[in-house]
């Protein structure tokens, strides 16, 4: 049995920051990630972040991942294992993991669950044709492996992921035939949408995909308009030719371990699905289990980084570790989170989080 003070599950923006914060206070940290690269989704984010300098503004996601990884490597008290998939949480507080073909049992005094989110799929006829991709897969292919998904793409979803991936595809020389959005307005930030529109890509709001078609792979899709009750309107069909349909209709938290641990959960659509109740330190209803990042509500990577800091600080403090400026660091992360979630863009997140305070 592997024993540690704090086991952190997931080494994306949240988990890396949790590890750094907890280790800086002296805690013994075990950081696990199923992937063979650190950074989670950051490694496919080739665009520059905005916001403030403390939140790595003007750096690309992939460079933020390298920066955080280098920081993690500075700590002798972080045992960082890539290729380690946590498989379950058991009632005696033990977790199991697959690590490079072996079976591990781990007992930590505190856990930070930072497992992120997975993509939602969309049911429409022929959604199993080759050429139908999730936006995450398209980003992995294009930005991580340098492989284009096809020649002409229909993007479904105009949230920030749909908009950014569309722009990146344009930069890579792929045609974007249009962006289809079921809501009456564009979901993502206007700066991203404006770039897309300047490039001449149409954004079809109040539209959804009726069906995909193609003999052995995608050759196009029919879209149609939705009324104010989200019902499709006959006679509004448009046929769009494309060899790729990219689904970017949101993410849902990867909460299996939280359910297994018996954390109190609640369905909060604003945050992507079922998420856990938490206190101001991001501790769940199960003492000693903390959360950070998309697993506790789908947001931006910047919010995940701050939540990671908070959870790492709080978990280490609860074990008696300390750092001179703890209160200042804690308060700073809280205010930066408030800043990120302020304004009209943060309304959805704020209303969702209100439902989860313990």
């Amino acid at each position, binding site marked *: 049995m592997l024993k540690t003070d704090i086991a952190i599950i997931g080494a994306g923006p949240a988990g890396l920051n949790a590890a750094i914060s907890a280790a800086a206070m002296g805690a013994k940290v075990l950081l696990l990630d199923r992937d063979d690269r650190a950074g989670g989704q950051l490694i496919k984010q080739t665009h520059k972040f905005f916001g403030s300098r403390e939140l790595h503004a003007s750096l690309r996601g992939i460079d933020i991942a390298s920066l955080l990884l280098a920081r993690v490597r500075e700590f002798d008290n972080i045992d960082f294992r890539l290729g380690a998939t946590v498989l379950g949480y058991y009632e005696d507080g033990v977790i199991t993991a*697959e*690590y490079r073909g072996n079976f591990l*049992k781990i007992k930590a005094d505190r856990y930070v669950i930072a497992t992120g989110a997975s993509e939602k*799929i969309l049911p*429409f006829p022929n959604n199993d044709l080759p050429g139908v991709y999730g936006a995450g897969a398209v980003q992995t292919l294009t930005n991580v492996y340098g492989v284009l998904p096809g020649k002409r793409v229909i993007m479904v979803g105009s949230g920030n992921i749909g908009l950014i991936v569309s722009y990146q595809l344009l930069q890579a020389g792929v045609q974007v035939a249009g962006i289809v959005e079921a809501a009456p307005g564009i979901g993502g930030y206007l700066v991203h949408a404006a770039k897309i529109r300047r490039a001449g890509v149409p954004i079809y709001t109040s539209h959804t995909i009726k069906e995909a078609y193609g003999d052995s792979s995608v050759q196009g899709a029919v879209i149609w308009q939705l009324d104010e009750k989200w019902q499709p309107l006959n006679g509004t069909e448009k046929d769009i030719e494309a060899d790729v349909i990219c689904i970017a209709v949101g993410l849902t938290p990867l909460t*299996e371990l939280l359910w297994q641990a018996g954390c109190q959960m609640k*369905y909060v659509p604003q945050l992507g699905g*079922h998420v856990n109740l938490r206190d101001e330190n991001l501790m769940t209803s199960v003492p000693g289990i903390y959360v950070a990042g998309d697993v506790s509500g789908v947001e931006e990577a910047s919010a995940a980084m701050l939540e990671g800091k908070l959870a790492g600080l709080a978990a280490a403090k609860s074990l008696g570790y300390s750092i001179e400026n703890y209160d200042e660091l804690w308060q700073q992360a809280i205010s930066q989170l408030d800043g990120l979630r302020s304004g009209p863009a943060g309304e959805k997140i704020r209303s969702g989080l209100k439902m989860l305070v313990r």
Partner: protein
Amino acid sequence: MPDRTIVCRCEDLTLEEIRDLIKKGYQSIEEIKRVSRCGMGPCQGRGCRQIVAQEIAGATGKNMEEIKMPKFRPPVKPIKLSILLGGEDKNA
């Protein structure tokens, strides 16, 4: 091939099949899972769970909050039996 709307990619279940089951009275994710294997494949329901919940909610007039999630059992992803047979790695 006829047009098919896939809900559970792992177990190859269509929207039509899920709707039929709900009509027959299988009105919880757990029941649908047991009778059809929906959500029991390699991804363990990550893609289909929410769609099935929405279908049940739509058909029964319930809110999504009222739709009970199924039991989440370890392991959360498929692993080779040899990993379990090898037992715990004591040198890790």
